[in-house]
């Protein structure tokens, strides 16, 4: 393993994050506060408790997932797309590194940034609602796995994208709807039976359900299934990246 290369990529990517630390910090705090003002206070006050949890507290895991998933994708896709766009990827391709080291460097940095923002959102949320974390280890595991798996997806998007428009295409057209329809702001049990069945085909449901379970012990689907789903998604992303580097798709001529 070329550990020096992994560290170099990681540090280089984190430096970009630290250059814009204020924005990185203020943006999630502001958007989370807005969600709580709108959904938690204005609308939430008219919604009854869900299985003993206030609506404001109920939406916290979903809000964290919403931001973490979007940030993991955007950080990782930008991280690898920018060198492609600038042409600096020549250095990466001519360096004594294999795809595992490149992925660890870029995805590790993107996941760290997403994790940082996830923690900031949780801290912000704790000012608005009483947070209860019943399974802290599971909570950390779900959060870290989500950061990693969606950073892997972002990495794939960054390699696939040929322009900046394509970079935002998948997050906006696919991921955002899946997250909003995945139980961020409601429990699946609140839907009519037909929609409950349809919703089970949305992979994000398993993610939010498992994460919410780690907070309040409430789950729409079995926790083991949630873990299995996120592990399978991570495995799928890794397989796609392995194939990309093996064939040189969109990176090597």
């Amino acid at each position: 393993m070329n550990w020096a290369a992994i560290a170099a990529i990681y540090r280089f990517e984190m430096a970009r994050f630290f250059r814009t630390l204020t924005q990185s910090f203020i943006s999630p705090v502001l958007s989370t506060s807005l969600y709580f003002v709108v959904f938690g206070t204005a609308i939430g006050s008219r919604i009854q408790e869900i299985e003993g949890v206030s609506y404001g507290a109920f939406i916290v895991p979903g809000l964290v997932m919403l931001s973490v998933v979007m940030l993991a994708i955007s950080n990782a896709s930008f991280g690898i797309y920018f060198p492609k766009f600038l042409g600096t990827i020549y250095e990466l391709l001519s360096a004594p590194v294999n795809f595992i080291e490149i992925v660890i460097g870029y995805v590790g940095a993107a996941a760290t940034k997403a994790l940082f923002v996830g923690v900031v959102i949780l801290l912000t949320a704790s000012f608005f609602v009483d947070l209860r974390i019943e399974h802290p280890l599971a909570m950390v595991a779900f959060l870290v796995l989500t950061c990693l798996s969606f950073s892997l997806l972002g990495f794939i998007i960054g390699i696939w994208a040929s322009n900046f428009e394509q970079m935002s295409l998948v997050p906006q057209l696919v991921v955002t709807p899946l997250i909003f329809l995945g139980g961020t702001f409601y429990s699946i049990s609140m839907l009519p039976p037909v929609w409950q069945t349809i919703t089970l085909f949305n992979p994000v449901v398993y993610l939010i359900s498992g994460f919410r379970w780690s907070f309040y012990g409430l789950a729409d689907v079995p926790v083991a299934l949630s873990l299995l789903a996120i592990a399978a998604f991570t495995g799928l992303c890794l397989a796609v990246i392995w194939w990309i580097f093996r064939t040189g798709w969109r990176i090597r001529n």
Partner: protein
Amino acid sequence: MKTILSIRDLRKSYADGFEALKGVTLDIREGEILALLGPNGAGKTTLISTVCGITTPSSGSVTVGGHDIQTDFRAARRMIGLVPQEIALEPFEKVMNTVRFSRGLFGKRANDGRIEEVLRKLSLWDKRRNAIKELSGGMKRRVLIAKALAHDPRVLFLDEPTAGVDVELRKDMWDIVAELKAAGVTIILTTHYIEEAEAIADRVGVINKGELLLVEDKAKLMARMGKKQLSVMLSRPITAIPPALARHNLELNGAGDELLYTYDTHADRTGITKLLNDVAEAGLVLRDVATRQSSLEEIFVTLVKGETP
């Protein structure tokens, strides 16, 4: 001299059937400067990209210091530094950080002392805290060289290092190349500035349409292919070459005041004495004489036109 880079029957074809490299075989000796000359689209950059790992070869093999670029890519790539043709740098990053990144990427431990040496050598030390976007084009090109040298490569590829740079910077680049050679670094540079190859290369390779037409010692190439011409300028123009001078195969210029005599410098007799005697006997009065040697550029044009060397 030991071979440090060995290329064997290297081929690169693209999906549309275009063959960018058609079986290139080339040995590069340790410590030499090899200039690869060729017109745009000849395959120079493809050759470099393939050796450096940016492009996957279709067939053939390349070893660097005995390490195969595919089966032993880590050892091979550690020995190589690449300065690309285009200026490709992260605009918001600081000079020092981007050079540190390059050193780390090639598996070397952080060593700011070594990076300082490289930056000083390239007159970049004062700019180390500047963001790349604040630098001039020439400075950016130096940063690219610093990045390529950050891991102390044994073989340095310079892809069109002086394309679009001013005369002063070009001379600076040549000085840098000379210093690197003195430090034992093998340098392969591509260029279509013939004077660049003429000024700094030990050997010259000519590539066209994916084929290596020749690789030869620069001095030998020029001696072998370099014709010399004697220009005899006359005080009074003439309308035709006098019959007494017919055996010398002279050319008369349009104005009629210059006779051109082409000769081989390596022949036992150049025929110059005889020519000058005959010119005097023909009653022509000389104003001046001058000699001129053909440049690499003319040799290059001859080669790419498909004429036999």
